[in-house]
């Protein structure tokens, strides 16, 4: 019995840092709608700064003062980031801020190694909390007890802050309806900045408090950020109590789960999230999102098919690309093939996001399923390449059909997080089912047949399929189905009122996007000759998101440019420098500032503004009316 009590307390202690992180993230998202990918980075910097301060200043005061000072320093840093970077892009399309914070995260991962060195750092133990307390023969670390007490205290402080202060009332009001708060004359700028500072302070505090139990190292952020998102969503966005309950729930399920299934930790949080979201679409304590006033897809420049001149230009560009094999070497051609494959992948996600209005955080699942489909067919069934390539993507299609059915029942960030959960579940199956998938050692030897083996033939193959995919998706966008899908994106209610079966439209779009992603994955398997669980991991899903956002989510085919720019920059930087993350992150941040609607989106806006300077007042009026 004593054992179970202690295990329960241990779970509570683990919940503490999750809760600190999650509450900060939840507040930030609730008010500013920023999906703050850099939250993990702030957590990590908090730990690093606290390490430096607590090593520098001795004694109990040095330690606890160092922890708090570290959180304050990092909160100041957060204010700086918010004022210099995020303020510029609040009016960008939804999720664009994700791109900025993703760029920051990349930079921070390299910066901490540059500043603090590559070795794992082990901080000192907390003065006064070094030992353990005996509980019927079981030892409970006293620091755990401290953490167990701390999180309800923080919860209480936050609760008072939100219920008893004017600032808290504003924050709650903004979480519920920020347009109305702005309309009532509240200075949003400072509200957003202060909220961001509080959120970052909590993240950094969570990181700083880890130093007596953890090692400080440059991958801490990735270790926690996804799980924190999951906790926030399970609890319900914007709900602090929800974050607390979810953190405790996840930690306790893990603590007791490993007693029965020792391998469960790898997937547990995602399983919990999938179940919670299917049963309660807004998380445990969340409320349904108010219907958006601004149509997410409202473009100043309405979509239209290409003019014949533009068609010719695209064809000419395609022809030039097709002539490459006569001028460049084998390596450039394989890079070209890889870029073409990622163009397919990015346009598939772009279709879902910009036409369907459904941002998927787990799109790599269908890419990976396509790749594994090919690997099974080519390696185990021994089918020729052309057959595997045609049939392999069906696995992606099947996965999209099954998961898509559940996902399209939700909307917004909840939709995104359910796609993430399913992607992680698929990933963990590929990772764990060693007998079939080879686990993380993957499936090797999936090389193309002779006719496609040479780099130039494979390049032509990838280029051809990429061009085909872009054309087909464009045709779909301007087909009756495409119009109906855009109607569901712009207003679910109105589209259903005129007789469109919105869920079925979205489900169909999900399946189309998943299948096209599967095609990309299938080609990728042959390009690399092997398949790994990596091919469906979170980083790949994030890459796809970045490509789409970089190109411009409010465009028809911006993802093509986004994919080319991101992939080319990525491959080139990784090859040229060991600090590729730092440079790539800085590059992304620069692009975010220079092209606030994505590269293609901003260019299009510039061109149309120059064309029709007289129409400008009208446009502004439309926007305000909405």
């Amino acid at each position, binding site marked *: 019995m004593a054992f179970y009590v*202690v*295990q329960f307390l*241990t779970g509570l202690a*683990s919940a503490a840092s999750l809760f600190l992180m999650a509450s900060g993230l939840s507040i930030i998202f609730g008010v500013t709608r920023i999906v703050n990918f850099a939250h993990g980075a702030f957590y990590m910097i908090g730990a690093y700064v606290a390490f430096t301060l607590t090593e520098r200043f001795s004694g109990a005061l040095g330690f606890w003062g160092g922890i708090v000072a570290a959180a304050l320093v990092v909160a100041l840093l957060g204010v700086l980031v918010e004022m210099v970077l995020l303020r510029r892009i609040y009016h960008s399309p939804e999720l664009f801020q994700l791109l900025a914070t993703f760029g920051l995260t990349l930079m921070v991962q390299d910066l901490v190694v540059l500043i603090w060195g*590559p*070795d*794992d750092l*082990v901080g000192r133990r907390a003065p006064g909390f070094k030992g353990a307390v005996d509980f019927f023969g*079981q*030892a409970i*670390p006293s620091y755990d007890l401290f953490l167990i007490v701390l999180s309800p205290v923080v919860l209480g402080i936050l609760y008072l802050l939100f219920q008893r202060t004017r600032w808290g009332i504003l924050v709650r009001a903004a979480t519920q309806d920020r347009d109305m708060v702005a309309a009532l004359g509240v200075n949003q700028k400072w509200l957003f900045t202060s909220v961001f500072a509080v959120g970052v302070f909590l993240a950094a505090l969570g990181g700083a408090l880890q130093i007596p*139990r*953890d*090692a400080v*190292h440059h*991958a*801490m952020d990735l*270790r926690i950020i996804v799980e924190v998102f999951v906790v926030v969503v399970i609890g319900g966005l914007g709900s602090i109590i929800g974050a607390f309950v979810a953190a405790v729930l996840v930690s306790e399920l*893990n*603590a007791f789960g*490993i*007693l029965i299934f*020792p*391998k469960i*930790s*790898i997937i547990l949080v995602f399983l919990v999230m999938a179940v919670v979201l299917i049963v309660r679409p807004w998380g445990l304590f969340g409320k349904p999102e108010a219907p958006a006033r601004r149509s997410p897809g409202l473009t100043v420049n309405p979509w239209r098919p290409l003019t014949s001149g533009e068609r010719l230009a*695209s064809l000419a*560009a*395609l022809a*030039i*690309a097709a002539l*490459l094999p006569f001028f*460049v*070497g*084998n*390596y*450039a*051609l*394989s*890079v*070209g093939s890889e*870029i073409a494959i990622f163009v397919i992948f990015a346009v598939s996600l772009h279709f879902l996001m910009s036409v369907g209005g459904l941002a998927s955080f787990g799109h790599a699942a269908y890419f990976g399923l396509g790749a594994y489909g090919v690997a099974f067919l080519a390696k185990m069934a021994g089918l020729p390449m052309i057959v595997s390539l045609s049939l392999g993507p069906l696995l992606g299609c099947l996965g999209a059909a099954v998961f898509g059915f559940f996902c399209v029942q939700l909307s917004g960030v909840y939709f995104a997080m359910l796609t993430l959960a399913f992607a992680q579940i698929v990933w963990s199956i590929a990772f764990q089912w060693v007998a079939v998938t080879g*686990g*993380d*050692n*993957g499936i090797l030897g999936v090389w193309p047949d002779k006719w496609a083996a040479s780099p130039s033939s494979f390049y032509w193959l990838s280029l051809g399929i990429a061009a085909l995919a872009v054309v087909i998706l464009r045709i779909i966008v301007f087909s009756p189905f495409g119009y109906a899908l855009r109607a569901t994106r712009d207003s679910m209610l109105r589209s259903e009122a005129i007789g469109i079966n919105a869920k079925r439209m979205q489900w169909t779009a999900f399946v189309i996007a998943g299948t096209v992603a599967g095609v990309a994955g299938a080609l990728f398997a042959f390009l*690399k*000759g*092997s398949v*790994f669980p*990596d091919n469906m991991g979170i*980083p790949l899903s994030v890459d796809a998101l970045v490509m789409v956002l970089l190109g411009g989510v409010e465009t028809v085919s911006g993802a*093509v*440019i986004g994919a080319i720019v991101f992939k*080319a920059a990525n491959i080139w930087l*990784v090859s040229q420098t*060991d*600090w*590729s*993350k730092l440079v790539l992150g800085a590059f992304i941040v620069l692009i975010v500032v220079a092209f606030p609607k994505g590269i293609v989106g901003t260019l299009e806006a510039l061109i149309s503004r120059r064309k029709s300077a007289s129409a400008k007042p009208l446009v502004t009026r439309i926007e305000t009316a909405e």
Partner: protein
Amino acid sequence: MRKFILAASLAIAAAGFANSAQAQGEIKIGEINSYSLLPAFTEPYRKGWQLAVEEINAAGGINGKKLVVISKDDGGKPADAQTAANELVSSENVAMLTGTFLSNIGLAVSDFANQKKVFFLAAEPLTDAITWSKGNRYTFRLRPSNYMQAAMLVEAASKLPAKRWATVAPNYEYGQSAVSVFKKLMSEKRPDIQWVDEQWPPQGKIDAGPVVQALAAANPEAILNVTFGADLVKFVREGNTRGLFKGRDVVSFLTGEPEYLDPLKDETPVGWIVTGYPWYDIKTPDHDKFLKAYQAKFNDYPRLGSIVGYQTIKAAAAILTKANSTDPEKLIAATEGLSMPSPFGEITFRKIDHQSTLGAYVGKTALKDGKGVMVDIAYKKGSDFLPSDAEVEKLRPKD
């Protein structure tokens, strides 16, 4: 739609890099490792191979030609490692590929080497598959494999009186195969042993408190640990506070390597049986020479990664010198059965499975001046801990 114009210009730019003239009188080696993902291990590794390059060229290079190492980062992703391998082979025309740390990346590059018929000397990856179940004729491996390290530890562990054993290992291929080999070899020597619990925290994400509690609840007499890096730190800290290691024997993979032992500082657990690299206590002329040169060049002490990086390039140079050619078939012929000196003494690349006989040090952890060290060390030769030739032939597919 400027997409393809952009693609074209980028590709042409890339080609411009590719066609840089190959200098005469140079031999290039292409080196790939997870520099940005695992700097704690790869930085000392890089220093190691830089020292080797300097020594080789100071001694006249490869049959009079200068040795050049071109190094690429793989970011910890198999697909990126293949892109890098492709660049090195297609654009840089390297004579061979070397390096890699993670097992899945090692396997990906090994498969690439097999497909493109390029010589590959894997430095770090520990998976048994790379020389056995997925071995191929183009791939050789330097470091003692999972199997060999397990066998070295079993030799010591089987002498312990403990009968109830529990295991904790990261939940991926390395952890899984380390545990399964250890269990198999241990149960062969000690049929009386009971395996009472196993814990599989996700790599890099151990929730140490519950794991330690769960292990303690099974009340084992001894524990096998395979976690390393930050996971090891958390596991040790929780275990120390909760008294998990009191009165229990612990056998642990890799923990004696300075990369993993040094961060633990005064929290280093005492008396664990570990494999590792006690650079401070190795008193052989071969190692002294390496240690002096390393400390003189970098003003830092070597980690195990330094040894691996150093010996990888030394081995590559020995192979290229003996083959006196960059033809992969001749390189393979030269490597099979080739013996050479190393800081750990003479090593041989076996013909039968392309594994080198580099060994490892086994010893016990101890605390000295607030730092973790290895004591009672003994060098275990790799050749003594490999299965019989008949068994290896069953494990490895025919070329």
